[in-house]
Structure formats: C-alpha cells, structure tokens
C-alpha cells in the first residue's frame, strides 16, 4: 500500500508539472521530427540509395536494356529516362538535378555485336589461311557518354563503370559464341549441336546479414526514432534529479527519513514511476515513427516482429536512465547543478553513443569509444531488432550492460547517501 501511494504521489506530481511533461514528451517528439527530416538525405547518401540518374537510351537494344535492368536491380539509383542531347544531359547533371547521366548512342549494341563477331570470324578464318577483311556497315567508333556531378561518390562511379564493362563483355562474348557457332556449322554441316548456353557459371547472391531472412535497410527513421527516444529516456534524469533535490531542500526527505522504512519505499516509487514514464516515452516515439513521420514523406518505422524483445530493451534502457537520475539527484546539491551536470553528461553520452552522428559513419577511434555509452548499448540493441531482426541471443550482452549500469548507479546513489549521512 505504501508503494502504491508513493507511485500515485509521483504520478500526481509529474502530471501537474507542465514544464517537466514538456521536456519529457514534447522535446523528443520535436527532436525526432526535426532530426529525421534533416538527416534523411544524408542517410540516403550513406545508404547509397536513390541516387538520381538520368538515362538516355538511343540504342533500344540489348546493351541499354541490360544496363537499365542492372541499374534498377542495384536499388542505388532512381532512374529517370529522357531523350536529350549530350549537351542537355551535361547541363542537367551540372545543375545538380542528377548525380549521374548516361547516354547510350543508337546502334551501340548492334555495332558491338558486329565487331565481336568479326573478331572471332577473323581469328577462325586465319586457321584456314583466309585473310579476307570484314567490312562493317558502320565504321564509326562506339562511344558511351557518362556524366558525373563532381560531388558523386567514387563508389557510384565504380558501380556504373563496372556494370557497363560487364555488360559489354557479355555482349562481346555472345557475339563470339555466335561467330564460333556459325563457323563450326560450316565445318561440320551434318552435326546437330545443342544451343549455346548463356546462363552464368557463377551466381553471386547478395543478402543482408539479418536474421529471419529480413532485409530491412537502415534509414534516417530507423536511426533517429530509437536514438532520440533513448536521449529523452536518459534526459529524464533532470526532472527526476530535480524531484529528489527538491524533496531534500524542502525537508520532505528529512521527514520521510524519520518514518519507518518510508524513504526506501519513496525511492522505489520514484524508480518505478519514472521507468514507466520512460516506457510511455518509448511507445509514443514509436507511434511518431509509425504514424507521424510517413505523413511528412518519411519512410515508416519498421519495428520488426519481436515486440517482447523491444519492450525488454526499452525497460532496460528506462531502468538505466532512472538509475542515473537517482544518482545525479543524490550527488547534486542544487537543482541548477543537477540540470547542468545531467544535461551536459547526457549530451556527451549521446554524442559518443551515436545519437547525433551514427556510429557507422564515425571514425574508428570514435567507434571504439562509443561502446562506453549506455545510449550506444540501447541504440545498438534497437538497431539489431529494427534492422537485423535479432533475437535475445544476439543482443543479451548489450541488455546486460544496461542492467549492470542500472545496478551500479543505484548502488552508487545508495552508498553516496549512506556516506553523506555518516559524514
């Protein structure tokens, strides 16, 4: 009964503190919305997805068709097909409308096939002493035009260049096989050979290293929603610490300490109440990711299908945050001190932990340092569930770290209070 009343009291105090509620719920919502919108294009670039590409196909044959199919299948590029002159393509890219422009001139595939066939025919003819020159219908050189915006990443250039080279090789190879086939038929008119096989000998399978065959690609929403939710959960240390300091300053803590067993109950009440608040924050922020962000043109947050595990991560992070709040509230001697120390410390932990800038774009040294931040443990756990559909088997070390942090901060608060009373 004491505990229930203690929780009820905390609930009443919290719900009547409008400024505290604003910090607790509105701040993370606004941060998620702003940061997701700001970082969306950056994440797209990091993810190498949806790079605008202008594709001018004057060939309408195998090279252009295969290249277009390949570019589409890579999912890196958003293809726009237009019929423009080379100068116009160059202008479009220069103006930043497209990062890459590709022009496939007319008859490119036909010329390529002819010349490949000619090469093998010439080679085979030379065995029989025939040195007749092959005459082409079109002797002009084959030119593919690629236009790159100067800011285009090298990886995109390499991707396009490799794709074109690979397709040209395929067409050359096909031409050679056709020529060889024709020559062999001439040498063995009675033979009935099977049709040449075009299927590749090696198949390369690309798959995301996720569990349960999930292949969710990380994006700004999947980073920012858990990141800022964790930030808000840990920011709860400021109202919680303020609450503890206020009780100490107005004599309530003194009164509670004189009641049998009550101070422990009151602290437990705070711990449970603020942990529930952090869980409510988590649910609300998920709702922002699922329902609000899509309204702003952002991708919808995909939370995977392991809800109990998500709850466990949120609970662990909530307890870690509340434990930290209790420690700050116990050590700080004034509300100003708690606010300053709490906010600066959380901002540093957030920066280190990959809330502001995700760890996967950090330099190696920062990636190493990031593992000391509890926000990083929570964030990595959320990534694992959202992106890789991980199970408890994969993320238990991160969850254990959050629990150890919670127990350490709680013990620290208890021991500090005991030490101060002994002094």
């Amino acid at each position, binding site marked *: 009964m004491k505990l229930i*009343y203690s929780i009820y009291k905390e609930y009443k105090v919290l719900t009547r503190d409008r400024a505290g509620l604003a910090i607790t719920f509105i701040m993370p919502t606004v941060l998620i919305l702003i940061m997701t919108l700001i970082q969306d294009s950056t994440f797209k670039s990091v993810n190498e997805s949806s790079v605008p590409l202008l594709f001018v196909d004057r060939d309408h044959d195998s090279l252009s068709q295969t290249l277009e199919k390949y570019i589409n299948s890579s999912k890196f590029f958003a293809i726009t097909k237009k019929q423009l002159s080379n100068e116009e393509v160059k202008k479009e890219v220069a103006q930043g409308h497209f990062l890459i422009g590709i022009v496939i001139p007319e008859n490119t595939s036909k010329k390529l096939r002819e010349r490949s066939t000619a090469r093998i025919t010439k080679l085979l003819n030379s065995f029989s002493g025939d040195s007749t020159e092959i005459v082409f219908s079109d002797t002009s050189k084959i030119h593919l035009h690629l236009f790159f915006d100067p800011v285009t990443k090298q990886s995109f250039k390499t991707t396009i260049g490799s794709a074109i080279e690979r397709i040209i090789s395929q067409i050359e190879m096909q031409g050679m096989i056709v020529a060889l086939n024709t020559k062999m038929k001439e040498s063995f008119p009675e033979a009935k050979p099977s049709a040449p096989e075009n299927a590749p000998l090696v198949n390369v399978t690309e798959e995301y290293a996720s569990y349960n065959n999930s292949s969710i690609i990380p994006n700004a929403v999947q980073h920012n929603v858990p990141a800022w939710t964790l930030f808000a959960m840990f920011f709860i240390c400021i109202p919680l610490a303020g609450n503890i300091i206020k009780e100490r300053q107005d*004599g309530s803590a003194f009164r509670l*300490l004189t*009641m049998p067993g009550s101070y422990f109950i*009151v602290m437990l009440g705070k711990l449970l109440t603020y942990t529930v608040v952090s869980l409510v924050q988590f649910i609300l922020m998920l709702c922002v990711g699922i329902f609000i962000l899509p309204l702003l043109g952002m991708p919808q947050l995909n939370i995977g299908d392991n809800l109990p595990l998500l709850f466990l991560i949120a609970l662990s992070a909530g307890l870690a945050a509340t434990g930290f709040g209790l420690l700050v509230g116990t050590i700080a001697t004034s509300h100003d001190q708690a606010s300053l120390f709490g906010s600066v410390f959380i901002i540093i932990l957030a920066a280190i932990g990959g809330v502001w800038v995700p760890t996967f774009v950090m330099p190696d040294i920062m990636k190493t340092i990031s593992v000391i931040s509890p926000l990083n443990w929570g964030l990595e756990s959320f990534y694992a569930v959202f992106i890789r559909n991980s199970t408890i088997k994969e993320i238990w070390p991160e969850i254990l770290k959050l629990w150890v942090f919670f127990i350490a901060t709680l013990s620290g608060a208890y021991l500090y209070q005991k030490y101060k009373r002994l002094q």
Partner: protein
Amino acid sequence: MIVLVDIQHVSKKYKDAPKAAVNDLSLTIKKGEVFGLLGPNGAGKTTFISMLCGLFQPGSGEIFINGRTHKTHSKECKQIIGVVPQEIALYPQLTAWENLMFLGHMYGLKGNSLKEKIKENLKILGLESNIHQKIISYSGGMKRRVNLIAGLLHNPQLLILDEPTVGVDVQSKQAIIEHLKKLNKESGMTILYTSHHLDEAENFCTHIAIIDEGKLITQGQPQELIRQNNCNSIEDVYLKMTGTKFRD
C-alpha cells in the same frame, strides 16, 4: 514522571569541521513534557534532532527512546516519533488532502481511520474548506498548519517541532500553539520544541534547555530558570547564557 528520551553523553563531529556540533550532551525528556530546546544558530539543535530522529548515529554516547536505541530498534523508535520540520515539507503541486493521505500511508495508516484523522485535524486547524486546494496556493500560515498535521497523523508519543511558528501570522501561531497545548494536555503527547520565539517558548514549554556550541548550558522549568538567573524573562536568561555576539 517516566523518562521517554534519555540522552547520555552524546557527541557528534562532522568531517572537516573544526569542532564538534554536539559535545557530550546529556539530558532527559519525560513523558508528557513540553521540552523547549533553545540555542543560537549553530548551537547543535538540528544535529541533535537529526540524531534523535535516527537520521545518523552519534559519534559517541547513546540516545534511548522509550528505553530503546535506533541502532537496535530503528523501526520502533521511528514509530514513536512525529517530526514537523522547519521547512514546509509538503508537495506544493498536491492538495492538502493528497499530501496528508500520502504521508499518512507512509506512516502505515490507511482506510477510514486515516481519512477521519485528516478531516479532524484540518477542521481543528481551520483548513476544512481548503482541503482540495493545492498547497502552492496556501498562505504561509496555512502551510505551517498542514505541515503540523502531517507530523501528528500517526499519534506520535514524541512530537518534534523545529520552529513550527516561524514566519506565520499571529492567528496561525495561536492556532498552532493552542492545538499543541490541547494535544499535550488531553493525550499526554510529549513535545520537543525548538524556536527563536523565546516568549512563546516561555509560555508554552514546561521545561527548557539552552545549548550553545554543542553543550548544554542550563536547563529547568522556565520560571525556575528566570528566578535562578535573576532575570525577567527567558529571553534575558538566554542572552545572559549565550551572550550578545552574532552567531552567523
């Protein structure tokens, strides 16, 4: 009279402090007494009260409450004591009713008996019409009265009042003192009272102890102290014993 509180050679020195806050203090508080503990700022009153309430242990000496110590019977000792701190130890965003219900539950009270107790005290102290008003909207005197009720809810045998009438108007002060006198007379509640209102202490207390620099200087019944020191009032006795030097 039966001894309720027995203080035996209690001392307490804080770390890094140049001298002891309480220095070899011995005194007894008998059941039914209104015991005034007077002294200038820094005399050791708050340290003494904190030890009496079990917030921390004395460096040396023993404190017996009803024959028991906090070391061995913390729960029983705390159950006997009711504390009214000098600060308004209430939650300003909660109503008087919510504050008192919470504190009542923390004392282990519940149900209708708690509700009746709260209503009764609010009525006696003239707060029944403001019962569902937030504490933040109360006047200083109203807050003091609710602060007092919070310490009385569990019918403590020993009520510790740390300057209960500081900063309140005459009407509230009178209501508080009259209620305390009534409790002392009717239920035999023992009261330990500290104040800088020496005239109030003279009229209210049945026994007064003056301490300074952690030591007991003098103690006795108010009129006896006045007579022994050839003074006209407790204030004169106090100034005679502690001097006129500032204690900041």
